[in-house]
């Protein structure tokens, strides 16, 4: 019976999400310009639901101090208080308000994941396009080097690196951005290789254009669309990875609120049938699902426009 009830809940949740997606799509269509409205009209409900979730998370991250009822690291009571009107989701092992920390977690976890992805992209894209454009020896050298780095699973590699550089925010950001930029390099190089062999690049080279002009004016504008979808995917990867590291106690360090470590710190509650620790984990899953839905739609659009 319990399982049936759960199944029912899941179905209700899915329907409500799709309904919210439908409403949000209608809202987007009504507020945006004609061209954009046309684009949104083609969005499946999953994608518009994804957009809604991303919008909510972003506003949580930006306005965290305004929304949260208490301070991020404020100790308010004894540990593990149950859900109440004072503490909506109860308190954690140290007596901090879980709801507050959930809101601040959006800022810390999502913010850092975004920062890492952006760094990885800037780094990986520039080197990737450069390698594709130069070709020959430079390309071979860079590609082989990246191949070796990619032969280590990224989680294992980051564990190794964090052992060496210690677990603080700066080394976390730099280590994961570096590791992830190898993946970005691969993709950016592949995308750029397709562009570089086109005649307009040859024409620009023969015109006597320099490398910087070629990268900025000729290659990058044409590489942006495929790379944008990839940005979403990489973000999901990074986000899941730092959550996993935090969960293992190797990510963001206390007292900063962070979803991964919130799960770990309160995991014991699950054995008592309390689902509070699952909420931050669910928050991670929800954002990743949302981004994936949007990326899926973008990829579908890109492939659909081709033929």
């Amino acid at each position, binding site marked *: 019976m319990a399982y049936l009830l759960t199944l029912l809940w899941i179905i209700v949740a899915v329907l409500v999400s799709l309904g919210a997606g439908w409403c949000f799509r209608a809202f987007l269509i009504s507020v945006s310009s004609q061209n954009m409205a046309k684009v949104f009209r083609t969005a499946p409900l999953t994608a518009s639901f994804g957009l809604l979730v991303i919008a909510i998370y972003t506003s949580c991250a930006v306005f965290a101090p305004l929304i949260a009822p208490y301070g991020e690291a404020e100790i308010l009571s004894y540990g593990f208080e149950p859900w109440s009107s004072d503490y909506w989701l109860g308190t954690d092992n140290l007596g901090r308000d879980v709801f507050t920390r959930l809101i601040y977690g959006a800022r810390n976890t999502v913010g850092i994941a975004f920062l890492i992805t952006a760094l990885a992209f800037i780094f990986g894209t520039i080197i990737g396009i450069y390698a594709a454009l130069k070709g020959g020896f430079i390309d071979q050298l860079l590609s082989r080097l990246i191949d070796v780095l990619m032969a280590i699973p990224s989680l294992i590699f980051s*564990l190794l690196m964090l052992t060496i550089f210690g677990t603080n925010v700066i080394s976390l950001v730099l280590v994961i951005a570096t590791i992830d930029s190898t993946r970005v390099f691969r993709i950016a190089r592949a995308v750029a290789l397709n562009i570089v062999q086109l005649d307009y690049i040859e024409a620009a080279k023969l015109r006597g254009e320099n490398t910087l002009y070629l990268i900025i004016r000729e290659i990058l504008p044409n590489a942006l669309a495929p790379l944008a979808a990839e940005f979403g995917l990489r973000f999901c990867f990074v986000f899941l990875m730092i959550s996993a590291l935090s969960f293992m106690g190797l990510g963001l360090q206390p007292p900063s609120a962070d979803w991964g470590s919130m799960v770990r710190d309160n995991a014991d509650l699950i054995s008592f049938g309390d689902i509070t620790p699952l909420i931050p984990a669910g928050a991670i899953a929800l954002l990743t699902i949302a981004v994936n839905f949007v990326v899926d739609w973008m990829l579908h659009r890109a492939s659909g426009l081709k033929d």
Partner: protein
Amino acid sequence: MSNVIKMILKRLGLGVLTLLLLSLLIFLSVEALPGDLAETILGQQATPENVAAIRKELGLDLPAHTRYLNWLGGMLQGDFGNSLALKKPISGLIAPRLQNTLFLTLYTACIAVPLALILGMAASLFRNGYFDRISNATALSAISMPEFFVGYIMIYFFALSGYFPSMANINPNTPFIDKLYVCFLPALTLTLVVTAHMMRMTRAAIINVLALPYIEMANLKGVKPRRVIVLHALPNAVAPIVNVVALNLAYLITGVVIVEIVFVFPGLGQLMVDGVKFRDVPVVQATALIFASAYVGLNLLADIISTITNPRLMRQR
């Protein structure tokens, strides 16, 4: 034929080279450690005499290339050095845990690979239908969930009610059947995540092949859909699918680390994470090398299989 053998030898050579470079990288990354390993070990008690003694004991006074060769030589003979935190030989720590982790990954693979292939093929066969859409959305959701989330949900639903244990505590004396039972939840958690990835990629690989002109040709010859998939699409999709399987088995390596922690499973992943926490460098080095070798090996295997199944490479003009 000789072409293929040459090609496989070349791949093998590349694999060995990659592993060598990896070991060098892992070795050097420790060299780059701020300060000195000896100082790290001693922490507050680092007096010059102590440091010198420890350096001598660890052989840190030798030149770097000698130490690398010694370390690599030891690794190849199964001697991984001593754990700094536990003061015990690492090989003794690793052996039973490696067995456990291998058991868990194989267990998962046995469920996940056939399941994912069947689901992926079905989705590609009924593409854009309801089955495809629902399985796609479900798979996407499953991919998006952190492994520990899935793990705790499993515990919440299946362990609290007492069907399965929430802690997968096994030891070498546990009977095989009990092992299967105890490890069911961790294996299921891993399966869920890996299957989703593998199924989506399988679907994409088959759909890529189905869009090719020779599939249309087969349809225009009046060949039945099932025969088209089995005889015309599959032989050409083997290479991409093998790559998908290898890639995802390699992905298991990452997943297994987290799942082991959730279910307190005595595996290699836990050993590594503990190593990272205590900055037990030799342990981290050894485990990283094992994980990386498994990863390289799997990719190598996939490469070789896709070479063998490709008639273009098998019979060159």
